[in-house]
C-alpha cells in the first residue's frame, strides 16, 4: 500500500462526518434567500442632510437666545445650507460679545465674518458633522430594529450598508405594504400650539409668520370615503416631542364607534413639562402633529398633570396598532427613503425551489450516467466524488451561514457540470499515459501529478471571477458567487484528494494490476 492511505481515509471520513453534522437537519441549517422563501428586501437611504439641517436650526435658535440672555440684540439668524447659519447682529458694537459667546459652542466654527456689518456665518465643524451623520444612521438602524421586533418578523436582517444606507430583509412576510409603512415612517410626534393670531385664509394665501407654519389635518368622511385636507396654522416650536414617551397603547375610540385611538403616556420629566405647558396655555388649542400631519387639535381645558394623552385620527385597528409600535420604538432621527425594493411572494419562491431542485437533480443524473458510461469504474469513482462534493458544498454553506438563493441553486447545478471537469482532466491524462505504454500504476502516478498543475490553474481563474462576483453582487448574485466558490473549492479537494485515495486503494495494493477500468 502507498503512503499513509489510512490517514487519508480518516481525514475523508472526518470531513464526511463533520459535513453531515453541520447539515442535519437540512431544513433548519440552510438559510434560504428571500427569492426562495419569499419576503421583502429593502435598501433605505437615510436623509441625514434633513436631520442635520434641523440640528442647525436648533443650534441657531440656541445661539440666538444665548446672545439675547447676554443682552446682545440679534437682528436675524438664518440657516445657510445644511451645516451653517448666518447671524446678523443688531449693532456691530456687540461683535466682541458674540465672539466670546462662541467659545461656549465648541461644535461651531467661524466660516466667514464681516465685523463692520456685524454679520458672521457659523458652521458646524467637519468632525462634528461626520459624527452626527454617523449617529443618525446608527440610531435609525436601532429604531428600525425595534419596530421590526415589535412587529414580529422571524429572523429579520437589519444592517447598515456603507455610509448612510440600511439593508432590511424580512423573510416570509405576507403584507409588504404595511411593513414598508411601518419601517419608513419617521414617526416624529410633536405637541405644538395652534397659532390663533394668524387667520387661516391669510396663511393659505402664503403669508405665514416666521414662527409658524401651515399644516393640514386629514379628515375622512365615513360615508363617502372622500378625503379632506383642512389647513391649520401651527406654531413651529414644539412644547413636547415623542422622545419623552413611555407607553403607547391601542384602545377603542369612545367618541367614534368603529374607530381606534392610541393612548400615550409620558415619562415623569415629560409629564412635568406636559403639565406646565398645559397650565400655561389653558384655553388654547394643542395640536398633535405626526410627521408634519396634524392628527387632532383639542382645546386645553385645564392643566393635564398625569402626562397622558390620546391620539385620535379615524384609525383602523391595524393603523392604530402600527402607530403604537412606531411611537414606542421612537422616531427616526432622519427621514428614510426607499432606494431599492425586492419583494417575492411565497408562492413564487416555492416554485423557484421546485424548479431549481428539478434542474439540479436532472443535471446530476445526466452527468452521473455520462461519467459511468464513459469511464466505467473510474466514472463511478468520479460520481462518488461528485456526491461528496455536493455534500461538502451544502455543509460548508450551512457552516458559514451562507444564504442559498435562486442563482445559488443555478451555481450548484453549474458546479455539478464543472466539478467532474477535474476528474476528466485526470482520467484523460491517465488514458494518455497508458497509450504511450506506461504500466497501470505508472499511468495513475503520472496522470495525477501532471494534471495537478493544470487543475490549480483552472480553479484559480474561476475562483477569481467568483470572488469578484461576491464583492460586486447584491443578494441573489452573491448567493451564486458563494455556491460557485465553495463548490469549486470542494471539487479541488474531492477530485484530487478523494479520487486519488480510491485509486490508491483499488490499484496500488500489493496485488499485481494488469488492467484499469477507465
Amino acid at each position, binding site marked *: 500500500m502507498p503512503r499513509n492511505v489510512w490517514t487519508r481515509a480518516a481525514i475523508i471520513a472526518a470531513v464526511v462526518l463533520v459535513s453531515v453534522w453541520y447539515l442535519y437537519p437540512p431544513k433548519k441549517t440552510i438559510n434560504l434567500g428571500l427569492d426562495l422563501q419569499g419576503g421583502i428586501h429593502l435598501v433605505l437611504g437615510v436623509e441625514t442632510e434633513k436631520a442635520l439641517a434641523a440640528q442647525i436650526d436648533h443650534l441657531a435658535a440656541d445661539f440666538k437666545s444665548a446672545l439675547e440672555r447676554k443682552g446682545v440684540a440679534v437682528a436675524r439668524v438664518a440657516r445657510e445650507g445644511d451645516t451653517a447659519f448666518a447671524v446678523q447682529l443688531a449693532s456691530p458694537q456687540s461683535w466682541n460679545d458674540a465672539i466670546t459667546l462662541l467659545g461656549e459652542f465648541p461644535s461651531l466654527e467661524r466660516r466667514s465674518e464681516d465685523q463692520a456689518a456685524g454679520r458672521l456665518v457659523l458652521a458646524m465643524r467637519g468632525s462634528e458633522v461626520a459624527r452626527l451623520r454617523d449617529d443618525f444612521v446608527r440610531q435609525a438602524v436601532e429604531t428600525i430594529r425595534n419596530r421590526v421586533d415589535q412587529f414580529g418578523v422571524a429572523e429579520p436582517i437589519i444592517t447598515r450598508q456603507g455610509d448612510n444606507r440600511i439593508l432590511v430583509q424580512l423573510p416570509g412576510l405576507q403584507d409588504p405594504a404595511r411593513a414598508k409603512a411601518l419601517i419608513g415612517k419617521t414617526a416624529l410626534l410633536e405637541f405644538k400650539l395652534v397659532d390663533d393670531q394668524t387667520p387661516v385664509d391669510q396663511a393659505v394665501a402664503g403669508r405665514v409668520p416666521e414662527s409658524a407654519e401651515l399644516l393640514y389635518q386629514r379628515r375622512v368622511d365615513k360615508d363617502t370615503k372622500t378625503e379632506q385636507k383642512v389647513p391649520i396654522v401651527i406654531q413651529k416650536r414644539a412644547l413636547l416631542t415623542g422622545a419623552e414617551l413611555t407607553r403607547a397603547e391601542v384602545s377603542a375610540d369612545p367618541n367614534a364607534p368603529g374607530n381606534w385611538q392610541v393612548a400615550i403616556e409620558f415619562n415623569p420629566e415629560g409629564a412635568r413639562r406636559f403639565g406646565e405647558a398645559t397650565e400655561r396655555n389653558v384655553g388654547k388649542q394643542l395640536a398633535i402633529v405626526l410627521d408634519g400631519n396634524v392628527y387632532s387639535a383639542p382645546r386645553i381645558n385645564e392643566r393635564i398633570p398625569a402626562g397622558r394623552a390620546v391620539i385620535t385620527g379615524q384609525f383602523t385597528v391595524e393603523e392604530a396598532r402600527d402607530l403604537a409600535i412606531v411611537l414606542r420604538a421612537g422616531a427616526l432621527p432622519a427621514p428614510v427613503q426607499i432606494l431599492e425594493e425586492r419583494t417575492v411572494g411565497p*408562492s413564487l419562491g416555492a416554485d423557484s425551489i421546485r424548479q431549481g431542485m428539478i*434542474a439540479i437533480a436532472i*443535471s446530476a443524473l445526466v452527468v452521473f450516467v455520462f461519467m459511468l458510461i464513459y469511464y466505467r469504474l473510474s466514472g463511478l469513482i468520479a460520481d462518488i466524488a461528485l456526491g461528496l462534493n455536493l455534500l461538502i458544498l451544502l455543509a460548508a454553506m450551512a457552516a458559514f451561514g451562507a444564504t442559498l438563493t*435562486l442563482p445559488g441553486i443555478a451555481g450548484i*447545478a453549474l458546479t455539478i457540470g464543472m466539478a467532474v471537469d477535474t476528474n476528466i482532466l485526470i482520467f484523460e491524462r491517465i488514458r*494518455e499515459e497508458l497509450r504511450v505504454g506506461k504500466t497501470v500504476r505508472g499511468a495513475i502516478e503520472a496522470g495525477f501529478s501532471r494534471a495537478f498543475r493544470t487543475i490549480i490553474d483552472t480553479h484559480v481563474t*474561476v475562483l477569481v471571477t467568483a470572488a469578484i462576483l461576491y464583492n460586486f453582487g447584491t443578494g441573489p448574485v452573491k448567493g451564486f458567487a458563494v455556491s460557485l466558490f465553495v463548490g469549486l473549492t470542494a471539487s479541488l479537494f474531492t477530485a484530487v484528494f478523494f479520487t486519488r485515495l480510491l485509486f490508491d486503494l483499488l490499484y496500488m495494493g500489493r496485488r499485481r494490476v494488469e488492467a484499469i477500468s477507465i
Partner: protein
Amino acid sequence: MIELFRNPGFNFIGKRKWAYLVSAIAVLVCLIALLTQGLRYDVDFTGGTLVQVRFEQAPSVDRIRAALARVGLGEVSIQEFGDPREFITRLPLTAASSEEVAQKIQNVLGAEASLGKFEIRRVEYVGPQVGRELQRQAIYAVLAGMVGILLYIALRFDLKGGVAAIVAVVHDVLVCLGAISLTHREFSLPVLAALLTIIGYSVNDTIVAYDRLRENRGKLLQRGRSFVVQMNEAVNQTLSRTVLTALTTFMATGILLFFGGKVLEDFAFVLFVGIITGTYSTIYVAGALVVDWTLYVEGRLRRSRPGRGAGGTATPTGKKAVAKA
C-alpha cells in the same frame, strides 16, 4: 473503452484563417445587433419598477395594458412570463414611490373585473441612484474579472498568452451580449453574473491548452519543430478533455435552461451560449492568436538577426525555450 477521439490529429491551427473569418463574422453580427437594437436593460440598471402578476385565468394582454394605461404611470411594458397566466410589467421611474406604484397596480387590476383574480408574486423597485451605481459596478466587475485573469495568465505563462486569452474572452462576451440582443432578452443582474462566470470559464480551457504547450516544450524532442505544429499538437492532446468537460457543463446549463424555470432562463441562456463560444474561442481565438503573434515576432527576429533558427521566443514557455535554443 469509449473514446471520443483516439489520437486526434485535426489540423486546427492550420485552418485558423477560416476560423478568424468565422469569428469576425460572428463578432460583426453581434456588434451590429448591439448597435442597432442595443441591449434592453432590466430595471436593475435603468431603475424602475417590475411587477410580476399571476392571474387565475389567462387574460388578454390588451386588457391589462388598457387597465394600466388608466393610472398614467408612464410607458408600461407588459410581457408574458413562462405561462399565459403570468405576466411581468415594467414601469419606468416616476415621481411616485415604489409603494404607490405597486399599490396603484394592485388597485387598478383589482378594479378590472374581467381580469379575474390575481396574485402579485414579485415586486422589484430600483431607485435611480441604485440603478446608476449598479451600472457602474457592472462595468467595474467585468473589467476587474478580465484584468485579474490577464494578470494571472501573464504571471503563470506570459503576457502574450494573457493578451490572447483576454481577446478570446472579449470575443465570448461580445457573442453572449449579441445573443442577448438578438433574442430580445433583458440584461439583468443574473445575466451579468452569468457573463462573469463565462469569463472565468472561457479562460479555463485556454489554460489547459497553454499548460500542455508548455509541458511539451520542456521536452527535448520538440526542438526544431515549428510553433504551429506544437500548438496544434497541444490543442489536439487536450481536445478530448476540452470537449468532454464542455459537454458535461453544457448538459448542466442546458438542463437549467429548459427545466430551471422562467426566472433563471436568461441566466442559463447566457451560460449556454457562453460555453459553446468559450470552447471554440480556446482553440480558434486564444490558440490561433498566440501562434500568429509568435510567428510575427519570430519573423522579425529572423530578419533582424539572420542565422538563428525558429526555436521560438516568448511563447507560453518563453524564456526557457530561448535559453535552450
